[in-house]
């Protein structure tokens, strides 16, 4: 699956994009987050407070219980801040 990081999640992990192949037991977003967090200290820091992290699977907002599978595009980012004040 293709993992994307934006804004400070990209800064903390040090990467914008990575291809990963977690074990089959990683079947939803929550399990994927736990698996990704173990990849490096930067990943651990990025996922330290999940209240500050939003998730999209295949470009739609989802929750931590949403299923993930091989071939998915999964993005992690902070709450959005577009538009004008």
């Amino acid at each position, binding site marked *: 699956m293709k993992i*994307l990081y934006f804004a400070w999640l990209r800064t903390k992990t040090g990467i914008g994009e990575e291809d990963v192949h977690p074990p089959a037991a990683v079947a939803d977003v929550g399990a994927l987050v736990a698996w990704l967090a173990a990849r490096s200290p930067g990943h651990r820091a990025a996922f330290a407070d999940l209240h500050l992290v939003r998730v999209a699977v295949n470009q*739609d907002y989802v929750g931590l219980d949403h299923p993930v599978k091989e071939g998915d595009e999964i993005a992690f980012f902070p709450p959005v801040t577009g538009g004008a004040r």
Partner: protein
Amino acid sequence: MIRVQAADFDVGAELAGFAADDRAIGGICTFVGLVRDVAEGGAQVAAMTLEHYPGMTERQLEAIEAEARRRWPLKDVLVIHRFGRLEAGDRIVLVATAASHREAAFASCHFLMDWLKTKAPFWKLEHTGDGESWVAAKDGDDDAAARWDGADDGE
């Protein structure tokens, strides 16, 4: 119509071409968002960089436009949102709505701005004299978007 671009836009030229052939339109409402030179904490903002998620940005903005059209009888909608480095005073976003009656145009323009702030995947990195920092989302933005829940029709 949705456009996501790095380049600036000309408000006059955009509006001159917007919904120009439809004589049933009674009014056009527009909102233009600008880069302010003051951060939340009071620091002077020289510039900002708007990062976005190509693909999802367009998809979310199209969904927001569709929701506005579902709620109000709109003749046309235009949303232009910029990304990349912007200086203080630069234009960030243009929202224009056209309708037979002004209430729908005003209400849907307001709705589009409130919703895109909480749903379109953009993130602001502010550049100040102290360095750079990511702008945190405000609870007020969610509150502003939530006020439209249940407010189904502006007529």
